[in-house]
């Protein structure tokens, strides 16, 4: 279960999401620039981001849960968010996905809203 809590640190709202689909990713946001001098010497310029990483999740949600997620993003799109991932790791950062897009994937009579929605969530933050 993915847990989104906001605004950080005075957490007021919690939204629970199911586990993401396979294919989720975690990446550094640090950058390295390489410069090579005329004599062949290599210089590297590093820009660190203080341990900030980008998390990317793809969800297949019921229609009603997708509406809850988009309402959450609408409220806290500029706030710090605490994210507890499916590995029980706690992150604090911001949702960076913009625009957020819900794509209706298929019909699902057993789901609330009777449809399944695909949505991608992008988050950048620091692991606590």
């Amino acid at each position, binding site marked *: *279960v993915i*847990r989104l*809590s*906001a*605004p950080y640190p*005075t*957490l*007021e*709202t*919690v*939204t*629970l*999401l*199911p586990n993401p689909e396979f294919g989720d990713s975690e990446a550094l*946001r*640090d950058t390295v620039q390489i410069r090579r001098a005329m004599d062949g010497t290599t210089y590297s310029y590093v*820009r*660190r*981001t*203080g341990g*900030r990483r980008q998390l990317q999740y793809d969800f297949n*949600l*019921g*229609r*009603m*849960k997708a*509406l*809850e997620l*988009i*309402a*959450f*993003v*609408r*409220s*806290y*799109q*500029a*706030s710090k968010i605490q994210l507890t991932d499916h590995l029980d790791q706690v992150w604090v*950062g*911001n949702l*960076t996905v*913009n*625009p*957020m*897009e*819900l*794509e*209706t*994937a*298929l*019909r699902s009579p057993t*789901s*609330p*809203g*009777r449809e399944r929605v695909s949505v991608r969530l992008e988050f*950048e933050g620091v692991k606590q």
Partner: protein
Amino acid sequence: MALRVTQSHVSVLGDEPAGFDGTGKLRVTQSHVSVLGDQAAGFDGTGNLRATQLHVAVLATEGAGHDGTGTLRATQMHVCVLAGLPPEAVSDTISLNETVSINVGYNKSASDTIALNDESDFLLTAEASDTIALTEDAVGLPGKKASDTIALSEATTLRMGWFRSPSDTVTVQEELLRTIEVEDTLALTEQSVKVVVVEDTISLSEILFNDDRIEVFDIVVLSDTSEIPVDGSDTISLLESVTFVKTGQRDGSDDVVLYESASYIVNADCPECCDVTERYSPFVGTSSDPDSPDPPSTTVPTLTSSHSIVLSHPFDSPTLSMTLRAPLFGNRDRLTNQRIHRESRGGTLIVYSDPQWPKVYTLVMDFAVLSEETAQDYLDFLAATLGKEIRLVDHESRHWRGVLIQPDDPITRNKRCDLSASFVFEGELV
């Protein structure tokens, strides 16, 4: 011829020895009284009987004071013994009054030291209380300091399960006509083996008059700890008044920011059990932060499935409308937020958005298997409402207010009676 009694005669008559003063009068000596009363008697040398302490004691079987004049004197001790009563009350009254009056401005010091110790035990209702009122006045000269330091410690040991309440009440008032320093130091320690009521009441009142720079501050730290879930609250009432004659620099500031929030999750151990990962169920708590964004609505959206969408214009009183069939799968709801991403020199990501900045919903829909007539009606409607606000009722019966953008999206004739179209609508839910 008168009879003259001689010693020899008395002895013979009374068969006792008798004093004889040589005047012919009978003189009583100690030995005579002792013989007559079978008691020792004082003899003052004048011939008069004198009662001594020893004699009274023998007669009354009690000790009696004797003042050396031959008069019986009763003392406090004797009365106590006679009445048989123990002491009922013990009280101490201390009155200290110190006055320092020197006409020249040398350093003056006045101090009172009082130590009271009350103990009360083995009583059903035990009360131990100290009441101290100190008043010090220092008038007229700089370099003076008036301070009171009071430390009260009261302990009540509950041995019989009765209600006992320890309390300290301290009232300190200091007043200086020209203040250099006013300081109150209170140390209250209360301890109960079985706590029924623990209460601290602190009342501080400071009055300052006329100084170049006046600083009045009170620091009170209260901490309540309970091992059982009870409501813990501290009530602090501070009253400070500064009366000034001369205006000077004064700084007053409070730097306390305290926000509280509460969040919750229902059935957090098993979210799947109550289907909270499928249905619309944001858990919205509360927050006292005034800058906290508005939380999402907890009202579940009402979605009523429909097989068509309706476009109409104008928004309030439509005069032009058309109906399209429900869109194909793959329709998209897009939320675009206006916000700023910046990265600091240290690599920190900063995201900012003003609450007034727009949050735009965009609906992207594709349609297929339209008839030629319906496709033409759509193009006509698009041409008539270019750039105008329309009402859109989507296939979930939600009403939107907005504008159709990208009017250059074509209709495509795939085959006979099979045309496709698409549009992009930008607006907001109503």
